[in-house]
Structure formats: structure tokens, C-alpha cells
């Protein structure tokens, strides 16, 4: 199982703006194995979506490498990249804006096959579309249906089918269920997990919802203002999370468990600011209840337990 599929090495993505340089993703490294899921958690503006897009070169990284089976896709020639691009796909958050309203369901799923020229025979292409539709739980009668006639859950299945039709090995899932109702959310999550089991797809699952990420991930990475603050296997993270931000995040989630109703909640004060020309040191320090002088120094990720990394000098002790 431990075959590394895709790896980010010191990946950076900066956006120059009038107010200064936004360090959307700042020096992030991790790897994902085939058939495994990395959950990327964080609040809005933490750079998780930018990171996801940089992984499949929708954004050109400012610095660093993205290794797919050992090849650096971030710096390879565009023409070479086109050849392996189909192996890495993406599914999106908004089931409404992520599907072209002028394409029917069939056309939407067929288009990737046309572009990649993977299958040249027209009949075979249609068979592939039919198989993929069935795989995603879309009845064949939707083939000539237009997206506006479908509800959010079915549209999300169309988006999933569009990504799957190229048989990718790696899918970036950018909040794929957060726009859906809970009952539909569960259907899509289960479908994603089934597909992973049968086809060994690796997911990078981006979400702000820790509950969702717990169900689907093998590893979890918590991000804050463009940096990784904690990384650990799923159960380790939920049982032994140490970074004050992770603690605050987990504490803030409302739970249906009545026994926890009156638990003492340590709420995080303050809000996330923009990572524009940030000073070195811990970016969480201004909201951290334990902040000290030492937090103004850079905080490298330190391994505190097998595969459990944390970027905090206090916790790493």
C-alpha cells in the first residue's frame, strides 16, 4: 500500500496583489499513497483550495515541486504534462457552477474523452460514458438531460463522472459535499469511498468540515494561513491532537451528542487575517492562548509521534 503516488515538496504559491504578496500556500510538503485519502482541513483563506489546484497544475506553483510518480509536473513542459494530466482530476464544491449549463449530461462526461483522445473509437467512447454513468449512479435516461433539470446531488454525480471517465489515479476533491444536504452528502461520501476501494484512487479531500474528513481520510493535514500546522494519521489526530489551532477547531464543532452539551468549550478568539507579506514565526500566534516570545521564530514541523508532525515549539517539547 505504501507506494507514493503524488508528493508536494516545499510547494509555494504566492499571489501578488496591490496590498502586497499573498502567501496563499507557503512551503508545504506532503505525500499521498495510491488508494489513500489525505484530508486537508482549514478555515476559509487557509490556502487549502489553492494547494489543491497547485497539485494538479491548475495554478502554476511559485516555487517547489509536485512529484507524480517521481516526475516533477510543476516544471515539466506543458506538452509533456498534457500527456499525464488525465491521471489527476478534480471535483468541485459548487454543483451549480461546476457544470457547463449548455452541455447535456452526456456531453459533459464525453468531453474529457474527446479532448484526451484516449479512446478513438466513437462506439467505445459511448460505452465508457455509459459505464461511468452507471458507476456514479446516474440512470441512462439522463444522457440528454441538461444540468438545470437535476438537483444538487445528481449534479455532483455528473461532476464526479466527468472526473472518473478518464480513469484518474488521483482526484482533488474541493469541498465536494459542503453544498449538499446531509442526506445527499452521505450518499456522495459513500460513493467516493466505494470508488476508492474498487479502483485504488488517491484523494486529496479538501474541506472545512472535520466531521466529514474523519469519515473519508487516512491522513489529515490541518492548515492555517498557508502553512501546515499539524499532520497525522486520522485516529492519531483525533485522539492526540496537540496544536492549539487544531484543539480550537475541534472544540468549535457542535455535536449532536447530548453528553457533551455542557462541556467546557475553549473558543478561539479573533479571526483569520490575510496572509499578506506575513512575518516569520507562527501565524496563529495572535489568536493562540499560549503565545510567547518564542512564537516569533519560524516553527518547523517536528515529528512528535510516528507520522505525527506539528509546527509548534510548545507542543513539540
Amino acid at each position: 500500500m505504501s507506494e507514493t503516488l503524488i508528493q508536494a515538496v516545499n510547494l509555494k504559491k504566492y499571489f501578488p496583489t496591490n496590498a502586497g504578496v499573498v502567501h496563499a500556500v507557503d512551503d508545504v510538503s506532503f505525500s499521498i499513497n495510491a488508494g489513500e485519502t489525505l484530508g486537508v482541513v482549514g478555515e476559509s483563506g487557509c490556502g487549502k483550495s489553492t494547494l489543491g489546484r497547485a497539485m494538479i497544475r491548475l495554478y502554476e506553483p511559485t516555487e517547489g515541486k509536485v512529484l507524480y510518480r517521481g516526475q516533477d509536473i510543476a516544471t515539466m513542459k506543458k506538452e509533456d504534462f498534457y500527456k499525464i494530466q488525465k491521471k489527476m482530476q478534480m471535483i468541485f464544491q459548487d454543483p451549480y457552477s461546476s457544470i457547463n449549463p449548455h452541455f447535456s449530461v452526456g456531453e459533459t462526461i464525453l468531453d474529457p474523452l474527446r479532448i484526451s483522445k484516449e479512446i478513438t473509437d466513437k462506439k467505445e467512447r459511448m460505452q465508457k460514458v455509459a459505464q461511468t454513468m452507471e458507476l456514479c449512479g446516474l440512470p441512462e435516461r439522463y444522457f440528454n438531460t441538461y444540468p438545470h433539470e437535476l438537483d444538487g446531488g445528481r449534479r455532483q454525480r455528473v461532476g464526479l463522472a466527468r472526473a472518473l471517465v478518464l480513469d484518474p489515479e488521483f482526484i482533488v476533491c474541493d469541498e465536494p459535499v459542503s453544498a449538499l444536504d446531509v442526506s445527499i452528502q452521505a450518499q456522495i461520501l459513500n460513493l467516493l469511498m466505494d470508488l476508492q476501494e474498487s479502483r485504488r484512487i488517491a484523494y486529496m479531500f479538501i474541506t472545512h468540515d472535520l466531521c466529514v474528513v474523519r469519515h473519508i481520510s487516512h491522513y489529515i493535514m490541518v492548515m492555517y494561513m498557508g502553512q501546515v500546522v499539524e499532520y497525522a494519521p486520522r485516529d492519531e489526530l483525533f485522539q492526540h491532537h496537540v496544536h492549539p489551532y487544531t484543539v480550537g477547531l475541534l472544540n468549535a464543532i457542535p455535536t449532536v451528542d447530548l453528553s457533551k452539551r455542557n462541556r467546557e468549550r475553549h473558543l478561539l478568539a479573533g479571526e483569520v487575517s490575510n496572509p499578506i507579506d506575513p512575518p516569520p514565526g507562527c501565524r496563529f500566534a495572535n489568536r493562540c492562548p499560549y503565545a510567547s516570545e518564542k512564537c516569533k521564530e519560524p516553527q518547523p514541523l517536528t515529528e512528535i509521534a510516528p507520522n505525527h508532525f506539528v509546527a509548534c515549539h510548545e507542543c513539540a517539547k
Partner: protein
Amino acid sequence: MKAKSAVGKEGANFKISRKGRYKLIWMRYKRNKLAMLGLIVLAAMLLAILTAPLYLDYNRAITQNISAAFTGPGQDGYLFGTDQFGRDLLARVIYGGRISLGAGLATVAISFVGGVILGGVSGYFGGKIDNIIMRICDMLMAIPGTMLAMAIVAALGAGLDKLLISLAIVTIPGNARTVRAAIMNLRNAEFIEAARCYGTRNARIIFVHLLPNILGPLIVTTFMSLGTIILCIASMGYLGIGVQAPTPEWGSIISENQSNIRYFPYLGTIPGLFIMISVLSLSFIGDGLRDALDPKMKN
């Protein structure tokens, strides 16, 4: 694998029904009564104009026959009457339409294509290219349209082809701006990112993914500009720098007769009516098409 082949069999029967899509557009278009009226009127007009040589002698439009001057409409076999030179007004209006409508449609086509290309490139790529294109457009738009067209015709010399070029230059910047704004709105949409994910190249993204989504509003503005263009040709003809006499053209028909309109009002109202009807029809058609092209409209 059994299940797979079963699906495959059915899948082989899948068809992208392009034909069905046009049928749907037509169905939606048909529901709009005003748009249908506009289409029928415009089609009838075009038919009459195109088949003119079959039933109407061009000479009636240009040959002077002073003895028949100022014959009222309906008299002596002149349906629309005659002008001060005794030329058949019906023939002049019909043959004049060949220039007014024909040149108008040609200009619209040129400015549509030009606007889509310039606006598409400008809106999709942004940055420097966008800046250069848009500044040029701004410069052109700063000068009043008719004046600019006149200046260009004056520089290039008179003639129908020159007139077309000048009118296209006048109308392209407006179209380019509309296209650019619409493209900018959509270029970061997730479905565009999705298309880029599977390797769609820029040209296909602009023309296959983005363009259909902005076509509706674009058609409306373009068709509206057709009205303006006919009026522009008319006013240039009126000023005498458009089409050369005695070639008839709707605007010049009115201008020739301006001194007589007070006593023979039909000389102004009949060609004026033709301009008005064609402009109205086109704006109805534009509105109807916009709704028909939107897949979200009910069928």
C-alpha cells in the same frame, strides 16, 4: 464483466442529440409571438428584396421620368407613388433595401466576429493583452460613432466596401466590451477549471465553453446595433457621403426628398417606415433568440 458488457450494449445506442437541441431552441423561439412576428416580417422583407429583379425592373428605380413626377401612392400603377424625378418609389425602396439591409447585416456579421475575438481574448487572458485591446477600444469609443465613420470614409474614399469597414470599426469596440465583461465573469467558474483539468486548450475553452454561455445577451446587443447601423448608413447617405446617387438606399431616399416632404409626406414616411419596421423586427428577433438559447427556459 457481464454487467459491464450489458451496459456497453445499451451505451452504444447513446447519441448526442444535436438535432434535438436545435429543435428545442426552435420550440422555445416559436413560443415568443413577437419574435415570430419579427422573423416573419423580416423574412418577407428579405424575400421581396432578394427576388426583386424577377418582378421589378431596376430601371424604374433609377430612370427619370419627369412627366410622372410626384404621382401619389396607388395612382397610375405606382404603388408607393413617385419622387420629384418620377422614379418609382416602390422600386427605390425595394432596391434600396438591398443596400441598407444587406450592408447592415454584413456589418453586423463583421463586428460580431471581431467583437467576439477581441473581447474573448481580452477577457480570457487579461493582463497586458487586455490592457492594449481595451485602451484601443476606449479610444475608438470616445469619438461619436457617426463622426468616426464619416472620418474613416473620408479617409478611405467613398464606396460601399469602405462604408462597411468604417461601420465595423465603429461597432466592434462596443461588442468587444460586452464580450469581455461576460467572459471575465465566467472565466474563473468551476466548470472552466474542470475543462482545464482534462487538458482543454484555451481556444476551445473560449469558443466551446464560454461563448455559448454569453451568446444570449450578445445576440441582443448585436441585433440592436443592426438597427443603429441601418440608421447610420441612412444618415451617412443623407449627408451624401454614403452610397452615390442615383443608387437608391433608404437613408438617401429620405434625404433626396427632404425639400418635398412637406407637400408630399409619403416620400418620407414610406422609406422611414421600412427602416422602423426592420429595426423593430430585429430587436424582437434578438429578444426571442436570447430566451430560446437559454437551456434553462422551459420547453
